[in-house]
């Protein structure tokens, strides 16, 4: 049971790390090269699409499941794994804080801009792009570190 929960936590964190990495390595550099209106519209549509139940379950599950795993490893037999699981949960927790403090407010601002014109798009883009991208890079790094911590935990046997 503790092992299964930890493995599920790892898979969920891997999905999130790769998702952030996908934005860092493909989506944002690509949008950066498109013209302003296309940039804003594309990001608005992606933002609308990502707010789906499956994604939100992954997003929250990647925090909740490792926390449950922490509790399941509090006994003596889990002590080799425990610090690594705690590290994973804290690192992922930091990505949620960043998301809530930076990325979600920027997404809301982008949504509020509605249908942009060629004239209004540059300002909307300028207020969004650099800050969102910078903090997404931070999420990618933190979440990847969480995945590493959880794989290290999983590779250690229960004693």
């Amino acid at each position, binding site marked *: 049971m503790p*092992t299964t929960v930890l*493995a599920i936590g*790892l*898979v969920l*964190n*891997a*999905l*999130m*790390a*790769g*998702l*952030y*990495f*996908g*934005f860092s*390595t*493909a*989506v944002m*550099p*690509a*949008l950066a*090269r*498109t013209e302003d209106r*296309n940039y804003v*519209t*594309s990001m608005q*549509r*992606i*933002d*609308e*699409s*990502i707010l*789906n139940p*499956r*994604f939100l379950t*992954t997003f929250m599950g990647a925090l909740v499941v490792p926390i449950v795993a922490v509790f399941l490893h509090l006994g003596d037999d889990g002590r080799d794994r425990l610090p690594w699981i705690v590290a994973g949960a804290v690192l992922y927790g930091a990505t949620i804080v960043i998301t809530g403090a930076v990325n979600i407010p920027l997404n809301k601002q982008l949504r509020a801009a509605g249908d942009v014109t060629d004239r209004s798009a540059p300002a909307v883009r300028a207020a969004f792009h650099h800050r969102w991208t910078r903090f997404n890079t931070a999420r990618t790094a933190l979440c*990847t570190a969480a*995945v*590493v911590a959880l*794989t*290290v935990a*999983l*590779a*250690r*046997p229960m004693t």
Partner: protein
Amino acid sequence: MSVKRLLLSAAATTVGMTTGVMYCYQTAIMPGIGRLTDREFIAAFQAMDKEIVNPVFVGPVFLGGGALLVAATVAHRDEPRRFGRLATASVVYFAGVVAVTMAGNVPKNNTLADFQVASSTIQQAAAARQQFDGSWNRLHIVRTLASVASLVVLSIAMVTNPRQNI
């Protein structure tokens, strides 16, 4: 940390990242740009395709995941139960993710990359998108599911008791 454990962790991290990138396309990118007009859709996909073929993703993550899986499999050849599971994860990854990408998605990406959005008519863009969209997404579901399956089997291999045989 032993070499075996290091290989397992490194394989899980890289295969995990690949899986997440597949999931990113599945749950955010394709549904998102799928709602753009034909020309916007093609321009957005072309731009992303150009960017994702970069040394970090293609090297250590996408191919690195496969290489580390194989290395982890070979390293566990003296543990039949783990070996079998790691071999399964490797086969699923190479067949369902790498081969589908090379034989399915990449040729479609290349065809779309040649399409000139700026000089195209609305009808030409609609036709190019129709040629691409549905079949690309079908192939992509295979990659997403295969990468998740590979990661799950790899996780099971990681927690398989090394002393257990068959």
